[in-house]
């Protein structure tokens, strides 16, 4: 078996002041995966993601990057952040520069790239998210959905191996979500490993290979999405409802269908026949 890209082992984290945010948390991220971290709001998903790129340091336990424990000195952190990119939920927490192009250039310049290389990275990241036309726009004149894409481009420009996204679909309309998922799918096909937190079970069911059910600061179970989401007791414990699509698919005979179109087609056939 290959070594996972990232392993979280027995991690505890207490906020300054002593409130426990994570307790004995285990998680593995394999190369090429699409991993959904599912949990209700306020369960500490963001805190977990902030551990995945070294922004927070666990009070206990360890995080391993491939076969080595991750370090918290400046050099290790730089390398870690190059490998694991984190996109925050609120884009205004991430965008600071006056124009889109300048903001996206921040990460590559911090990696020590030259102006020429940086310009190339900026173009590449904006193109990957289909927002090349925004390059010269002022950051504060963008719509929420555009800001979200720009925040993502700023992280992509660092070419991370793992892209971690905190509630990527929050606040987007269905068109925005579709646009985002298209972009993520392209990244996935290009070899980027994706980790995202969400409370949207439908999204996880439709889109993730693996799901980790997260509650009260710990992962209750991580595994293949369909298996995890079919575990009713587990979901109930985490105050989540099973996805409607899964429940419908379970009513149909044969192998479990994942896509909305397939389930609807089958149902229609049976209702008419």
């Amino acid at each position: 078996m290959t070594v996972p890209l990232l392993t979280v082992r027995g991690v505890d984290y207490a906020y300054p002041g002593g409130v426990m945010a994570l307790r004995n948390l285990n998680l593995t991220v394999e190369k090429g995966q699409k991993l959904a971290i599912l949990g209700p709001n306020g369960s500490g998903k963001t805190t977990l993601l902030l551990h995945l790129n070294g922004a927070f340091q666990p009070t206990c336990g360890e995080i391993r990057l491939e076969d080595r424990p991750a370090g918290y000195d400046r050099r290790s952190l730089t390398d870690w952040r190059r490998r694991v990119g984190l996109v925050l939920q609120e884009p205004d927490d991430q965008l600071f520069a006056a124009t889109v192009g300048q903001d996206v250039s921040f990460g590559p310049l911090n990696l020590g790239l030259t102006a020429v290389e940086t310009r190339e990275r900026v173009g590449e990241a904006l193109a990957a998210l289909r927002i090349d036309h925004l390059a010269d726009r002022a950051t504060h004149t963008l719509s929420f959905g555009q800001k979200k894409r720009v925040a993502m481009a700023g992280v992509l420009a660092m070419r991370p191996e793992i892209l971690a996204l905190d509630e990527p679909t929050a606040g987007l309309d269905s068109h925005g979500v579709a646009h985002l998922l298209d972009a993520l799918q392209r990244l996935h096909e290009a070899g980027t490993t994706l980790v995202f937190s969400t409370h949207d079970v439908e999204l996880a069911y439709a889109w993730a290979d693996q799901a980790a059910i997260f509650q009260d600061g710990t992962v209750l179970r991580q595994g293949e999405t369909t298996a995890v989401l079919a575990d009713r007791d587990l979901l109930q414990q985490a105050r989540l409802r099973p996805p409607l699509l899964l429940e419908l698919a379970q009513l149909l005979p044969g192998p479990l269908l994942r896509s909305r179109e397939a389930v609807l087609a089958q149902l229609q056939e049976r209702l008419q026949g």
Partner: protein
Amino acid sequence: MQAIDHHAWTNRWRNRHPVEKLLPALTLLALTLALPPLTIGPLVLAATLLATVRGAGIPLKTVLSVLAAPAAFLLAGAPFLAISVRFHDGFSVQFSPDGLRLAVDTMVRALAATSCLTALILTTPLTDLVPLLRRVGVPTGIVELILLIYRLIFVFAERALTGRQAQAARLGYSSVPRGIRSAGWLAGALFQRALERAQRLELGLTARGYAGELRVLPSECALSWSRLALSMTLVGLIGLTSSLLARGLA
């Protein structure tokens, strides 16, 4: 402010190098302050209006509305310069011809000077000008701070606006005392938000390898020496014409 910002980012001269706009504007400003106002003033006003409206393509209405606020202050204040108040032999208020001349001079000069700055800020976003400070030796930290504040003004202005609307929807401004209290609460909440936001912004920047310096790619527009030379020649001609006119009138 929103209107100024909008035009600064979208006008025809947006992508010209900031020095091409800054230098002529400051030179015109210097001429306005140095030469007799009655001749240079109207020339400068005409030149700046022509530049912003015909050159940069900003609607005349916008330019005039930006100029209107300082002009109103001038109209309200300048007439008092024409009046002199005496305290010996009791108290008397007098209208003096010298004072009138002074009032007109002041008004024309101030308006022309304002128009230079208006032309500059309507055609150039603040964030193009601030990096120039670094070249004249202002420490990087201060320049970064100015740019961050510029960015955050918009974030908080939006918050303040929605917060006020939410309060108004619950009758928070239905009377003056209540309005004052609501505004106080809103200000308090904004301070708290600002602190939280600063912490999260730091996390967001750290995730992208922030190590104490907010470096970004400089903007790519190149300085056109020929355009700069042309506009400086025009500015020089304006100065010359005004001096000749002033001599002729005298």
